[in-house]
């Protein structure tokens, strides 16, 4: 069976990682006290994360993610939402040495050229504005604008 690691940067069941993994994949959340301690998370932050995990109605484990995930998935394919977080990246990289790990990106709001100037926000905004202000229903799967007339439902 394949697994989906629902980590703290993508706590929803409609993330594209679910489609990529397919209906039979088992999503899991891992409560990581050690990492919360390391990051100095206050009680209120932990409560918010716990409630968000609980609302997903998926199995919740407590422990070190690397340990839990390698025990659970035992060589099968592991899916996870991609994230810039170096801690999550490192866990996925370690697991990837022994099993297939598939990272699925989160949908961007805007589509900009790869070499766009990111030096200051407003230079980015000027490039990103048109696609950001276009609703999903006016774009194709790759995020390209397919029509420009207004749609209201």
């Amino acid at each position, binding site marked *: 069976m394949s697994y989906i690691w629902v980590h703290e940067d993508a706590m929803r069941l409609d993330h594209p990682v679910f489609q990529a993994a397919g209906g039979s994949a088992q999503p899991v959340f891992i409560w990581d006290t050690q990492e919360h301690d390391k990051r100095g998370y206050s009680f209120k932050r932990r409560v918010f994360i716990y409630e968000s995990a609980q609302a997903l109605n998926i199995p919740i484990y407590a422990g070190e993610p690397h340990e839990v995930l390698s025990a659970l998935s035992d060589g099968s394919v592991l899916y996870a939402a991609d994230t810039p*977080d170096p801690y999550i990246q490192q866990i996925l990289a370690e697991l990837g040495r022994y099993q297939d790990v598939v990272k699925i990106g989160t949908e961007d709001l805007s589509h900009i050229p790869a070499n766009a100037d990111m030096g200051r926000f407003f230079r980015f905004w000027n490039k990103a504005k048109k696609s950001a202000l276009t609703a999903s229903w006016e774009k194709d799967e790759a995020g390209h604008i397919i029509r420009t007339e207004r749609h209201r439902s």
Partner: protein
Amino acid sequence: MVNLLDKQRVESTQPFTVALLEQSGREAVFKRVRELSPNLPASDRAVGELKGGRGGAEQCLDAIDPVKYGSSRNHLDGAVTQLSPYIRHGVISMGEVRDRALKLSTPKQAEKFIQQLLWREYWQRIYTAHPERIWQDVEAYKTGFSPEDYADNLPRDILEGRTGVGCIDGFIAQLLGTGYLHNHARLYLAGYICHWRRVKWQAGAQWFLAHLLDGDPASNNLSWQWVASTFSHKPYYFNLENVDKFSGFNVDTRPETNAPLAGSYETLFARLFPNLEPSR
């Protein structure tokens, strides 16, 4: 050793429908989180009003008003959404939020709101391309000071919200008590810490990450760098008149309790950045 948090769910082959803790309300969650966090000091007891999970996100989403947002978002009592903790933890996608705004208003009317969402995307893209920028100065300070001139740690009076500056203590109380601060209040507090108290932005950023329900390495730390001037052309600072203009009645903006913030921009600039040429 793998420790099952909720054995029932894991062993059940049936889809889990009713969350047991949900039935007994938030108290049961608080107790469970406490048990799972043995190293948290007992004195750390505050919880935010925003409840984690899709239900809470939908409540905020149902209340958005992009038109009112555009005209009032800079005011501490303006029509901001409080969606940030849900967005930060991916409980809800930014695409869904943007699409809701575009159902409620025209792209032109929703522009200010979507522009703010884009700030998040901007910071995330920088985080992805340059993870080292999260804790390192992106550029030099433009304050006339070098990093060594700034303290490494937050002084106790800031940590405890006893600075003696009325509005600042109010913002700190809100941060510690609820885990949420309006963007403008974050700017005031960060500006105060970096420029009035001359503390390194990293110390403030770390503190915010501990308490903000939406604490996010990219949005938070790069915003702190923006305030500090290590990722902007100039330092962000403000005066009491500005706080008063954007505050509601529940913020203490009396001159007698906010003396360090009172004065014209020119006066404060000269006081805070004595090594720079007068600019405004």
